[in-house]
């Protein structure tokens, strides 16, 4: 392990590490544009220059490998470096259109940040003498390119080449008129991960159609969360403002998604405001249709019916089905509620292939659209959907409490389930959406989307990951955890209280596979289940 002295302090570097990586590992910030830890270094922006003892000129720290005994001075101690960075900033801004007021990147732009940090000089170049380049070029339906804002760091080129494995972008022309381009006029970006180039673009040159002109970034709140688009569980940062979610951006987690996420998952935040969202509970009032009602009524009525059925048919006439779309905590409380109140009753969990869609790709997509597919196995919910359907068909199950899934319209058992559901005396569906199964229910419990609640998902590798509410529950929707606790109270059962965090701690103390875990210990990067 080579030892390196940075700004007078000695550090141990990893073998073959670059100076900038070593600085980053040790919390020393070096200004940079073209370097990205997930891409090969290019050394073209000249922002990360450092002074290396005995080197004749300033060295790009992204291309300089640490040697044992190396002595480096960064901008924190070297006036020469600060001067070079100030000059690079000036060069970068020579032809920049300075259109921050209409640029989506404003507020999270490296040009702005570093201007304040390093430069702060007035422009010496009149606006009318700037080099003009193409604006608003569509690289695809999702990605728009503005060549005037571009600083030609080539991160996007390298992402396409190295991460997506697609030769789609390149730098064309020379000198001041250089720009990033697709290889021919008809071409469009074709990858499933293309919007990542918008994330890694350090300036406003690449923008995402979905977010363009929607919200200034400084108005938004940022919440760490998990993408629920598939069982990978990519870590994301949710941008929201005034009870509205505007975007997902991938959040670094080396064990899950590195720095990236897929374009499809990125848009799944929209489900929180989707048209089919259920924002108030519903109750069937005679006939086949349910109507909006209030929580008191739907809970009391459900509890009354269930108690009556239990009295008449025994506790095993009540069954439950957990869901890989619901949080671990909801599934756990469902299990607890039934264990406490209806001993011997079935608590089923859908089979692992319910949400399979195609195979995994070579980067992140797992092909399993359920974010919490491992929850059933982790909590020991071993009863199958078939066994519940058989019970309904045989007339031994009269009431069913379901979390989330649209089983009447999903999977190979859909038709059989839909038919069986007709026979139920009481079907309760707790879901964020008014889907086909919810439409058949006697009581529909309006649950929150995961972006409105607190809890965990367990990804396909068994990693338990937290999510926090990015926005408050909309209208009258309640978190799944709260609905289950309310239901338990109405039924007179004792189950753990509190929000997702407290429920998780109760769960971790009790469930074998979760031993050693706690809400706090999960942190922002999650932790693996015990084997």
């Amino acid at each position, binding site marked *: 392990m080579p030892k390196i002295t940075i700004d007078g302090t000695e550090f141990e570097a990893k073998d073959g590490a670059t100076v900038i990586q070593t600085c980053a590992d040790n919390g020393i910030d070096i200004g940079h544009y073209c370097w990205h830890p997930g891409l090969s270094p290019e050394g073209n922006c000249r922002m990360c220059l450092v002074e290396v003892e005995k080197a004749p000129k300033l060295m790009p720290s992204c291309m300089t490998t640490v040697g044992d005994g190396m002595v480096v001075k960064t901008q924190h101690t070297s006036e020469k470096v600060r001067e070079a960075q100030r000059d690079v900033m000036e060069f970068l801004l020579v032809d920049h259109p300075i259109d921050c007021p209409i640029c989506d990147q404003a507020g999270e732009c490296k040009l702005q940040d570093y201007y304040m940090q390093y430069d702060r000089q007035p422009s010496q170049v009149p606006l009318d003498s700037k080099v003009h380049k193409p604006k608003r070029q569509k690289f695809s339906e999702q990605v728009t390119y503005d060549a005037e804002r571009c600083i*030609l760091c080539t991160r996007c080129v390298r992402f396409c080449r190295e991460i997506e494995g697609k030769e789609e972008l390149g730098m*064309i022309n020379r000198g001041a008129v250089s720009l990033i381009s697709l290889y021919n006029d008809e071409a469009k970006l074709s990858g499933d991960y293309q919007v990542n180039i918008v994330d890694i673009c350090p300036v406003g040159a690449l923008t995402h159609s979905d977010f363009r002109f929607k919200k200034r970034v400084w108005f938004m709140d940022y919440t760490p969360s998990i993408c629920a688009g598939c069982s990978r569980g990519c870590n994301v940062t949710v941008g929201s403002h005034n009870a509205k979610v505007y975007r997902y951006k991938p959040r670094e987690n080396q064990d899950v998604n590195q720095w990236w996420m897929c374009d499809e998952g990125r848009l799944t935040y929209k489900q929180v405001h989707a048209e089919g969202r259920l924002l108030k509970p519903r109750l069937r009032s005679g006939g086949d249709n349910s109507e909006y009602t209030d929580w008191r009524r739907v809970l009391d009525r459900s509890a009354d019916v269930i108690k009556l059925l239990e009295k008449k048919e025994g506790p095993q006439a009540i069954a439950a089905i957990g869901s890989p779309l619901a949080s671990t905590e909801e599934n756990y409380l469902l299990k607890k509620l039934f264990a406490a109140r209806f001993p011997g009753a079935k608590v089923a969990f859908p089979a692992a292939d319910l949400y399979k869609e195609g195979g995994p790709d070579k980067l992140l997509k797992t092909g399993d659209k359920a974010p919490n597919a491992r929850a059933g196995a982790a909590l020991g919910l071993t009863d199958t959907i078939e066994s519940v359907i058989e019970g309904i068909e045989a007339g031994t199950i009269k009431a069913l409490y379901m979390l989330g899934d649209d089983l009447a319209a999903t999977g190979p058992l859909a038709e059989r389930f839909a038919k069986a559901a007709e026979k139920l005396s009481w079907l309760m569906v707790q879901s964020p959406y008014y889907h086909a199964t919810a439409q058949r229910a006697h009581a529909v419990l309006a649950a929150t989307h995961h972006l409105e609640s607190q809890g965990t998902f367990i990804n396909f590798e068994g990693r338990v990951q937290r999510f926090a509410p990015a926005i408050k529950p909309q209208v009258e929707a309640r978190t799944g955890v709260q609905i289950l606790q309310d239901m338990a109270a109405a039924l007179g059962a004792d189950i753990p209280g509190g929000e997702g965090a407290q429920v998780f701690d109760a769960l971790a103390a009790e469930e074998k596979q979760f031993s050693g875990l706690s809400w706090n210990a999960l942190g922002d990067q999650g932790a693996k289940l015990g084997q």
Partner: protein
Amino acid sequence: MEKVLTSLWGVENSHKLDVYKSHGGYEMAKQVLSDWDSPKLIEHVKATGLRGRGGAGFPTGLKWSFVPIDSEKPKYLCVNADESEPGTAKDRYVLERTPHLLIEGVLIAAKALKCHHAFIYCRGEFYDQLAIVRAAVEEAKAAGIVGKNALGTGYDIQVTVHSGFGAYICGEETGLIESLEGKKGQPRIKPPFPAVHGLYGCPTVVNNVETIAALPWLIKNGPEAYKKMGTEKSPGSKLMSISGHVERPGTYEIELGMPLKDFINETAGGIWKGRKLKACIPGGSSVPVLTAEEVEKVNLDYESCAANGTMLGSGGCIVMDETVDMVHMLRVLGHFYSHESCGQCTPCRRGTSWAHRTLCRIDDGEGKPEDVETLLHIANNMTGRTICPLADALAMPIKSFLTKFREEFDYKARTGKSLVQPGKAA
């Protein structure tokens, strides 16, 4: 002085194989390929003190010695025929007049480097020269000089002539390698150096045409004969191109160490129309300019040029008489370098263009007095901050023009008028 490179210039059909052979051509190559080994060749070239003629003047034998000769990877030789430096027109004559001299040099260098595939990377604009070199290589192939069992010596050497597409930056050795690999010509960051990690990731030597073409003579006559010419640290002869306001512009082979004033006044016949010398760029447009007084002191060798704050470079001597408007002259240089910047590094991409635009403004009479300082500011800020020296290649002329002819820039920026009247002697 003995002619190392130009002895066949003026001979009819000197570019033809039979003419070349009738003057002893390929005898040295045959001898080297059959009897010499790599260490002996490298030592021999080191002993001659031959320095790279592309501009940097790096000792050729030393450059070769950095190559891991016994590496299992193939070793490549690239001949840099991308001669594009304004003012320089020497390699083109070697290509036109004695392409076989170059090919013979290639065979010798290849043997030294244990290289079996050499490339001649020809400037895109060298349309005629490319055809001549291609024809010469074909001739050599047909005669069994190049290819398998070259000259019957058992040594295999393939020679590929490759045309560039008109980019100055492909004359920078790593830019040349990138271009040869089929990529956009952009210099690479060194280290790793091409000697270790060059073309296709293999050990590679990039040598200038003039350097390679000197090899047959060096083998034949030996280090001592070569060192008799030139100075101690700059031995031998050099092709110098001279252009601008002289009576006999052209390309001449001179002995290194020749006084610049003699080169201008005697070899090139002096300043035209009886005018006075104003300034001279001795080594290609990217080197610092010399004033008429400085020209008196400078000799044409690497050390004397360096001692006088300029460089011998590629030997492209540009002479300016007293009627030259230095602002306009620098504008022309600015145009060249901003046009040729590859666009990779920020300081060069933006700096060359910004400097050029500033120069245009001053030259067009629309400048402001502070523009002159801005120019210096740009030049200082792009010096030594980029991957390759193209930014420096504009920064050096800017700094030297502004140091030595400052009053012309200040006057034009202030008044919009030139201190000299172009075309009219004082």
